[in-house]
Structure formats: C-alpha cells, structure tokens
C-alpha cells in the first residue's frame, strides 16, 4: 500500500491538489457526524482507490467532493477552491465545469441517444463547453467514444447497450471536455471480473489522456492492486489525520 499519513504538504506545487480536505465534518442530523476527516489530500494526476465497507461514509464523502453536499465544518478544497465557501449554485457550476462523475449503474438518461448522453455536460454548461477551447463537441464525443470502444453505438438508444457499454458511455460523458477530476462510484460493480479489468484499463487510459485525477470508490478490495494509490476510508474517516502523499 503506497499510502502514508503526513501533514498536508502538496499545496506547495504549482497547482493546488485535486482534493484537499481539512477538518471536514458533515452530519445529516446534528451531532451525528457521518464524515469527519481531519486531513485528506489527493494530488493531481493520481488514480486513487478509495475503499471502505458500506456505512463508512463513502456516498457522503463523494457528495462533499462533488459539492452536492456542503461540509458543516472545515474546508473541502477541490482544485484549490474551497467548496464550503461557495453557494449551492456556485458549487453546481463548479461541478459542471471541473468534475466528471460515474455512477454505479443506470448512468444514462434513457430517452437520449448515446451521443446526446455524452454531450450532456457540454450542452448543459457553458463553462464546461469553454473547456473544449473551440473544438467541435461532436468530434470530442466521437474521439472519446473511439477511445472507449463504443464508437459503433453512438447513435443507438441507450437501452440497447450492455451494462459494460453503458458504463463506458458514462466514462466518456465524465471525461468530455477534459475535467480535472473524475469521481467513480463503484462503476464496475455490475460487471464481471474480466470486463472489470478491461473497463479499468480503458478508464485509466482515458483519464491519463485527459489529464484527469481519478478518485475511484469501491468496496471491492480485489481492485486495489490495479491502482497506484489506495485510501481506506474507515482509517481516514474519524481518524485523527489520514493523509495521502505521493510516492
């Protein structure tokens, strides 16, 4: 395990870390913290495996990282921006612009075609569209689809896709217009082990190409060896100081 706990130090680099939590606490009901993380830093460009059993606060932590939830205390810095200082609308805009998100399953809007699903982030948000730097969104989608081996399915209705294909479409959507951070919430749980590895390979390759930091959440410990780094959520959450540093 290439995991060590030290004081935050990554901010010294030219750009802020992809994720930096300090004293972040969140409770759905007052006094019952679900997330209490003293320190968690994920540098840019990493592929991090965040694992923990159900109930360890994974979903809540992802909500905090994505800015859907707002920490009650502490700082949640994504790419150097403290989300706790943003309004909910600003957090939505931030997410639209800088984040890609892949769900466990049912990632796609059923009434849109595969291409429309991939294009959704750039169509919905002007900031995200700007990241294409003038490139044609359709071509960007086609390139991603080719990389993820779903080019043949671009015009299909999403309901005709296999689960594996659907998850790759979801990755393409998360990666369109090259966001800095991609969060995957157990995206392989519905895949069998062969496809799982192949999926991860495509995911790593695409994230590397896009230059995105990958935070991959799962309770499936068998995936851990595939990642460069791993964070155990039970250790980090409610632990005094859990810190991830570069090798």
């Amino acid at each position, binding site marked *: 395990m290439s995991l060590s706990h030290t004081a935050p130090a990554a901010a010294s680099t030219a750009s802020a870390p992809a994720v930096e939590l300090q004293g972040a606490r969140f409770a759905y009901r007052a006094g019952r913290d679900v997330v209490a993380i003293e320190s968690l830093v994920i540098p840019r460009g990493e592929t991090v495996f965040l694992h923990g059993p159900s109930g360890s606060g994974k979903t809540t932590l992802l*909500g905090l990282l994505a800015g859907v939830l707002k920490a009650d205390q502490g700082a949640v810095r994504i790419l150097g921006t403290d989300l706790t200082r943003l309004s909910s609308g600003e957090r939505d805009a931030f997410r639209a612009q800088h984040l890609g998100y892949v769900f466990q399953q049912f990632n796609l809007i059923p*009434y849109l075609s595969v291409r429309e699903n991939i294009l959704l982030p750039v169509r919905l948000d002007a900031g995200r569209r700007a990241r294409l730097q003038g490139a044609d969104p359709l071509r960007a989608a086609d390139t991603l689809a080719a990389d993820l081996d779903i080019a043949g399915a671009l015009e299909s209705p999403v309901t005709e896709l296999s689960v594996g294909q659907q998850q790759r479409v979801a990755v393409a959507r998360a990666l369109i217009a090259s966001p800095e951070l991609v969060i995957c919430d157990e995206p392989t749980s519905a895949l069998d082990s062969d496809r799982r590895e192949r999926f991860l390979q495509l995911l790593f390759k695409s994230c590397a190409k896009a230059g995105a930091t990958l935070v991959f959440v799962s309770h499936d410990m068998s995936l851990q060896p595939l990642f460069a780094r791993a964070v155990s959520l039970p250790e980090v959450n409610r632990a005094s100081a859990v810190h991830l540093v570069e090798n």
Partner: protein
Amino acid sequence: MGTILRLALQSLRSRFLTSFLTVASIALSVTLLVGIEHVRAGVRESFAGTIRGVDLIVGARGGTLQILLSSVFGIGAPAGSVSMATYERWAQHPAVAWTIPYALGDSHRGYRVVGTTPEFYERYRYRQDGRVTFATGGPAAKETDVVIGAEVAERLGYAVGSPIVVTHGLQGGGISDHEAHPFTIVGVLDRTFTPIDRAIYVTLEGIEAMHEDFEAMPVSAPPAIGAPAESVPSMPGASAPPAMPGASAPPAMPGYEPPPGTPTMPGYEPPPGTPTMPGATPPAVAPAPAPVAEAPHDDEHDDHADHDEDAQGAEGDHAGHDHAPEQITAFFVGTRNRFEALQLQREMNTDLTEPLTAVIPGVALGELWQNIASAEVGLRIVALFAVAIGLTGMLVALYSSLDARRREMAILRAVGAGPRTIVSLLVFESALLAFVGCVLGVAFVYLILSLGQGAIEARSGIHLAIRGLGATEWSYLALVLGAGTLIGFVPALKAYRNSLSDGLSPRS
C-alpha cells in the same frame, strides 16, 4: 435553457402515451371551456342582434318583455293592440323618422303571419347591419302578396308563386282558415338566423282583407261564445287545430291570442266555464299538405267575434272597408335623432290618449338576457370543473412519474444541473403540456365549429360565427396555462427535495 427545453421535450416524448393522454385531457377540458364560451357568446350575439336599428318598440300597455317577446321573437301573446289612429298619430310625431307597423295574430302551419308595410324591408336591421334581403322575389305589395322567411320556405318547401292559406290564430295548426282569401308568395327572404326566418309577411291590407272575408261569413252575433262557429271548409294544406279531445276548449286558453285587427284587452277573454259547442273542438288532423279529412270548423272563432263585440267601438268599423286594419299589434319606431328616443319613450308611456308601452330594444334585450344568464353561469362552472379535472390528471401523471425519474434527476445533478434546473425542467414540462393542451383544445373548438356550424344552425337556429378568441376565452386560456404551470411546481418541488436529500445516489 435551450438544453432544458430539449430535455423536457425528449423526456415527454419518451413518455409519449402519458404525455398524450395528459394533453388530451387538458385539450378536451379547454375545448369544453372555450366551446361553451363560444356558444354562449354566439347565442348572446344572435340574441342581442335579433333587432337593430329600431329605437323603440311600441305596443299596448303591458310588460316590457311581453312586448319584446311577442313582437320581435314571436313568443307569447301581445298585451293588446294599438289603434291605427294612435299609430298614425305617433308616426307624425316630429321626432319620428319612420315606423314599421306590425299586425300579428294569424299563422300558417305554425308560422306567424305579420302584417306590415314596405318600411319593414327597408328599415329592419339585425345583427351588425344585416338588412332584410330577398333570396328570390320582392316585397309584398298587393293584398294577396306574401313574403316568407327562409326557414318557412325551407321547411314547407315553398317558393315564389306558391299559393298559401293563412290560418286564423297562432297555435300550431290553425283555428280556422282564411281560405276565402288565398295568398300567393311573391318573395322569399334570405336567411337571417333571427325570428324573421320563421315568419310570414303580408301587407296590412292583406291582414285586413282576410278578416273582412272572414267576417263576411255568417257569424252568429254578440253572445257568440256559445254560438256555432262558421263551418269553414278547410283548404288543403291547412291543418286542423291541435285539439284536446274532450276539453271544453275554453276560448280563453292561454296562447289562443285574439286575432289581430280585433281590438282586445287582456281580461276580455270569456270566462273559462263559458259553454262552448260540445265536441266542436275538432280532433287533431295530421298537418299534411295533402287534403285532409275535413275538420269541423272549430268554435275558437267565437272569441274573435266576441272580442269584436267587446272592443272599443269596433262594431261597425268595418263598414268603411278601406282595406287598412283598424288595429295593429305593435309598431317599431326609428327616431330622427337617437337621443330623442328616451324623450319619445317617456312621451308615449305617459300619453293618455291610448295606453302604450314603448320599449328600447337594447334595454329590453339586456333585461331578458339577464333572466336567462344564470344558466350560463352553471355551464361555466361545469366547464371550469372539467378544467380542474384535466389539470389534476396532469398533476397525477407528472407526480407519479417522478419516482421513476429520480435517477434521471441525479444524473442531471451530477453533470452540473442545479436544483433550480431540475425545478425548471419539471415546471417547463407541465407548462408545455398545458400549452399544447390549450392549443389543441382551441383548434378542436374551431374544427367542431367549422364542421358543425351548419348542423348547429339547422338544429338550433343559432348562428355560431367563427371568430377570434374573445377576452374571456383568452383569460380562460391564461388561467389554464397559469394553473398548469403552477401545478408543475408540485412535482418540481418534490424533485427538488429529492435531489437535495438523495445527493447523487437515489435510494431506489
């Protein structure tokens, strides 16, 4: 926002059946609402447009509505009559530009016969500036000339040149036939969608002439009530009266108006118990154009004779035979200056020579409409409930689809849509459903109108003009659209709360 719009459209399309049914229920309720309003406005319009250009309607002293109904609509009995002398005196009044005399009391197979002058064809107006025009032929000029309304011509299959027999009395079949004075149709009027269509017009002299002929027959004099009626053989084409077998047929039966030209006053009717010829009331005979079994001529004429006796010095008046009736039922007045109408009305109403009631048609029509307006309120309430049902259906459809769409909302949130976007998506959907419902509903109204206009006219005589939406209709549409949009907030706020509590992983 363009994306939201497209998303909403695609989402609705993906739930085509539900969307379609929702739109259909809204469209139907809008059809009902707008349709009822259209019919209401159409009825009111054709009602208010029944008579135009006439400043005063003058009849014997009586109720405003009675005068209006009897003279313009041909409903019910006039209160009495106006003597020719009085009419002529008022016609000379400096404020009066023209007059149209109206002598009622006879009928032909259920259609009223009106004795009038050529002024009628000149001056009478209906709806906006509708003139009385001829489909064929021209005005009645001679004593025996008859002009018929469009409906009369159509229903009875008459044309210019047809002979016609006028029946004395007003009810369905005639009471007696003025067969001695057969008339000839010289003109058929264009359809007006007013009571004109259901009337038959003759000259005043024509009216008088047929009564002279009638009176020339042996009639047992004064105590005429019980006297046997003249056995006038009925002409082919004339129908016998609707008889109530066994009824002692009191001449005073309501509706058995005294004939025109017969000066009568209310209350002059003989008492009901008056002996009448037993069995004199003939059995009903099918009103077929073919010669029918001879009905023994009825005794209702007694009251004709009777009234003649009772009337103010009518006795002997016929001696002159100047071919102008002594009495008319009412007359219409056009003033030189509209502002003088009120003054003239007051003058007529207070004049002591002969008690008259002058009515301003617009005022009386408004009064009459008020009386029947409560029915329209009921219709509106029903239609509004229909709209409420349609909108509730939409609420149910949107709300019940919400759970299935939680995942969709989470995806949208994950790609950066804020809760406000989610809300606007759902509100936009419902607004769109309501809007399409309104458009289809209105389109449906016009479709029905354009297809059914003829049939509605033929059946009810109501001319429903195809016209633009009025202020009321627009406000209804705004109401439906506004309510539809507001209703969209109910599922939208639920989705908003879901998307907040769900975060990015709906518990489903």
